[in-house]
């Protein structure tokens, strides 16, 4: 099994690429073969993922990273192929594997116009490689490469398979992300040149850079640290997205095909928040402490702004997109407290948002598939016309608004809790104010969700659809949604199974840094 430990991560990450290459070689008329290959590749990845889960040492005895591999890559610029998993990245890695598989299952009979399963699945597999790679990278340049790989496939998904306004939405997504990542890259390089290994030389290695005892960045001045943090902040915050750089998100989500929205919400956004936890905070703790109040402020503005914007939306997908801004606000609030509780809460929030909002976008997509509209004012009486779909929408919305015993609750609750007692050196009064504002946000969240349900799920079937018969949830929809529903319940009832995984790594990395 030594072999598996060395190769599992690389295999899982690049297998989708192999699948994608096979797809390219197939003629595009043979749709069933194409679908089978894509499904096969993602199932194989998932199997490797299960293998990783079995082999992963959850005991916490293993310090640092597991399934690690470190090879020379481009030595002229000092970057290595360094990968590994710990309790922070493992859940996200598994989430990305799982969501991609479910998306491909869902795609089986839900190809958006202009059809072309070959290219569509090709892009999904490319995306999978980018997403998985981002979560396993332990080298800044490697991370940057994977971070950027997702850009083109997602751009194409929106630009080709998107809705009316796809041209605008896709380029906006692309340019926003690129703008951020250019500054992120500049910051990475500045970090590199300001680092000195004990053995001499510079490094891009995240493990070395974040090891405060090693003193790799001991020469880094306060001002320089702040500038570097700011550059990375720009890159990550746009990806999250935080208010006020969130404006690409509603457009991208609204125009993207269902599969694109699901992947975007469930996984891509997490690359931003994950990067804060993996890169910004551990490498630049002092700058993080300086920035934390501002991050917290932007986070709670995002919570309130997202909720208020939701109340005003007339489009189901746009509403869910704005709800993401709010949910990611809770995640960022947890991170801003710089406490282990807060960061655990944030990691939990990422996973639960991935599951719940992913499911919501699936449901919105299926509703659009049946009604050919997303206008809330034209919908209604879903519980009557399609009781199962309606019921599931009610269930998922409750999970999203943070009903206890469902996945949305533990993350948001502990995120607020952590704001009560932020890390040493942070102003308690400020963070407690944030906590109160965030609490108001939860009320608003409940408000807009219930308001949406009232208009969409409850009431009578509007005259427009009277007499229409809709087919309720289909086989492939069940297959792709049931796992998410189960996880929503499991994580809601037993949040400990996830918290215990993240907590050990969070403690080992952060307890020493922020006291």
């Amino acid at each position, binding site marked *: 099994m030594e072999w598996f430990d060395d190769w599992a991560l690389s295999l899982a990450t690049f297998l989708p690429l192999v699948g994608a290459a096979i797809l390219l070689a197939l003629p595009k008329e043979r749709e069933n073969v194409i679908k089978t290959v894509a499904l096969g590749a993602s199932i194989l990845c998932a199997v490797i993922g299960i293998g990783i889960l079995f082999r992963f040492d959850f005991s916490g005895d293993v310090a640092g990273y597991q399934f690690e591999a470190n090879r020379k*890559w*481009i*030595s*002229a*610029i000092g970057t290595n192929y360094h990968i590994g998993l710990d309790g922070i990245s493992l859940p996200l890695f598994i989430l990305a594997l799982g969501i991609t598989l479910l998306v491909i299952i869902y795609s089986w009979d839900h190809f958006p116009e202009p059809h072309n399963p070959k290219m569509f699945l090709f892009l999904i597999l490319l995306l999978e490689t980018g997403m998985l790679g981002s979560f396993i990278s332990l080298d800044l*340049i490697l991370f*940057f*490469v994977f971070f*950027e*790989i997702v*850009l*083109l496939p997602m*751009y*194409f998904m929106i*630009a*080709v398979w998107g809705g009316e306004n*796809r*041209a605008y939405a*896709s*380029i906006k997504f*692309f*340019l926003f992300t*690129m*703008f951020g990542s*250019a*500054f992120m*890259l*500049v910051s990475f*390089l*500045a970090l*590199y*040149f300001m680092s000195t290994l004990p053995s001499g030389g510079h490094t891009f290695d995240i493990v070395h850079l974040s090891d405060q005892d090693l003193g790799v960045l001991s020469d880094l001045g306060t001002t320089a640290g702040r500038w570097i943090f700011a550059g990375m902040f720009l890159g990550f915050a746009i990806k999250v997205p935080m208010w006020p750089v969130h404006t690409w998100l509603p457009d991208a989500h609204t125009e993207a095909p269902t599969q694109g929205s699901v992947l975007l919400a469930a996984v891509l956004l997490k690359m931003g928040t994950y990067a804060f936890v993996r890169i910004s905070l551990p490498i630049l703790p002092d700058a993080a402490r300086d920035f934390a109040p501002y991050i917290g402020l932007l986070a709670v503005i995002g919570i309130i702004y997202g909720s208020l914007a939701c109340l005003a939306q007339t489009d189901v997908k746009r509403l869910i997109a704005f709800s993401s801004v709010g949910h990611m606000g809770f995640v960022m609030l947890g991170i801003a407290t710089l406490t282990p509780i807060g960061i655990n809460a944030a990691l939990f929030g990422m996973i639960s948002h991935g599951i719940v909002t992913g499911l919501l976008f699936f449901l919105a997509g299926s509703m659009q598939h049946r009604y050919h509209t997303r206008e809330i004012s034209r919908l209604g009486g879903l519980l009557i016309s399609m009781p199962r779909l309606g019921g599931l929408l009610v269930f998922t919305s409750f999970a999203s608004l943070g009903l206890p015993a469902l996945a949305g609750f533990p993350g948001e609750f502990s995120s607020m809790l952590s704001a009560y007692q932020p890390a040493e050196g942070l102003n308690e009064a400020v963070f407690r104010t944030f906590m109160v504002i965030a609490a108001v946000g939860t009320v608003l969240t409940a408000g807009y969700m219930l308001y949406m349900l009232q208009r969409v799920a409850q009431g009578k079937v509007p005259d427009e659809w009277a007499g229409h018969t809709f087919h309720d949830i289909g086989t492939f929809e069940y297959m792709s949604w049931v796992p998410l529903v189960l996880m929503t319940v499991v994580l809601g009832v037993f949040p400990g199974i996830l918290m215990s995984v993240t907590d050990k790594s969070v403690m080992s990395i952060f307890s020493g840094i922020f006291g």
Partner: protein
Amino acid sequence: MNVDWHAFLPEAIVAGTVILLLLVDLILPNRSKWTLGGITALGLLAAAVPIATLAADFADGGENRVFFADGYVVDELSLVLKGFFLASGYVALLLAYNTIEEGAYYRGEFYFLLVSAVLGMMMIASVRDLIGLFIAFELFSAPGYLLAAWKKYDLKSNESGMKYFLMGVTATAIMLYGMSLLYGATGTLTYSGLMEVLPGVLDGDTSSLAILGIVLVIASFAFKVSAVPFHFWAPDTYEGAPTPVAAFFSVAVKGAGFMGLVSLIFFALPAGDDVWRPMIWVIAALTMTIGNLIALRQENIVRLLAYSSIAQSGYILAPLTVAALPDGEGFGPGHTESLQAVVIYLLVYAVMNFGAFGVVIAVARRTHSGHLDSYDGLFAHAPSLAVVMTMFLAALAGIPPLAGWLGKLAVFTALISADEVWGYLLAVIVAVNAVIAAFYYMRVVRKMFAEEAPEEYLVLPPLQPTPSLQFTLGGLTLLVLAAGVTPMFSHLSEIATNSLSL
């Protein structure tokens, strides 16, 4: 005079090919003239052999080979660049082959001019004195004036050649004037002499003479690499010239311009850094910004690529601003990094720009148009070309894992390694420009995939490029992928920087 024939063999073979082409062209009857392309290709490939043996010699610890009275140096930098120019000439030949054969006039002369230009470029990689620099500069420029005007019944092509010629001779005049001033101030023409004398001269009474000389010489190279404000010729020339020639200009001629500039900056004028550093900083910032902004408004693919290549010149110029920072006896951080960045960027840029031009040539064979709208729905009637074009454009935009990101990374690396405020500032300008550029590259991509193709093309079978284009595009596609994920180009650039330490 002692000549190291082994070191001079690559140039000798290319020079031999030039003469052979002229002679054979005289003898051959018209129906056999297609063989001239083959002779050209063989000549270029043959010249690569001694480059390989010389490189092997350097790998075994061989020393720089200096001859022609210190005026000609074969070092590892020059070898990498000579290989680059040979490859560029070869690719340009492949791209041009069908166009030239179908035109069926003056074929021999076309190949002759192309190879002559390549010879000039190879020389500029090695010359280390001002006279040699001038000769090499003219040798690769003059054929370009004729090549640009190749479509002799086409007004635009004539205009293109005329503009290029007028701009080119202006640049030459400026360079000569600058050189004469430098000579007047320093009394030497060799780079090694300049290295020795210039510091003293710049502190002395004739410093203003030398400063003006440096400014003029650098400005003349700004013409060649189409840097703002000397860029006006590029879009018109590229648009009017045959597209393969435009590709050759945008890659090889520009590369030669950069090689000349690099050799001056690193081997002759480091002492004048107070003069050229701010100058290049401003030119680089303006070039990338103005190139990108104007590219946003272009409706013709060749003009778009022309402005994109202007902007790319800005990126390649940027790292030179951190070259030769004085630091005690030697040079400060950023010196090696800047040369490395220029070399990596030139290599990467050649692959992606040739690729993009190759697709333009292939598509124009069906649409007979350079208008951006002729790319509408390209994916529907030429799927492989659309995919390949996307890869090249994404590479130009700098998106990993395609090769372009390595170039950007190297530029950022150099700028940041100097740890100077103005270095960071230029890095930020590059970053902002990368985003502006992405907009127009992606605009083409969107047209290819998301727009409707005209009916007339949809009924045709998928567009198949000619065999030579297929071969070229296939190779470049593999290269644009391989160079992005493997260290091949950064390895070459490391080899090139060995020349600095010797």
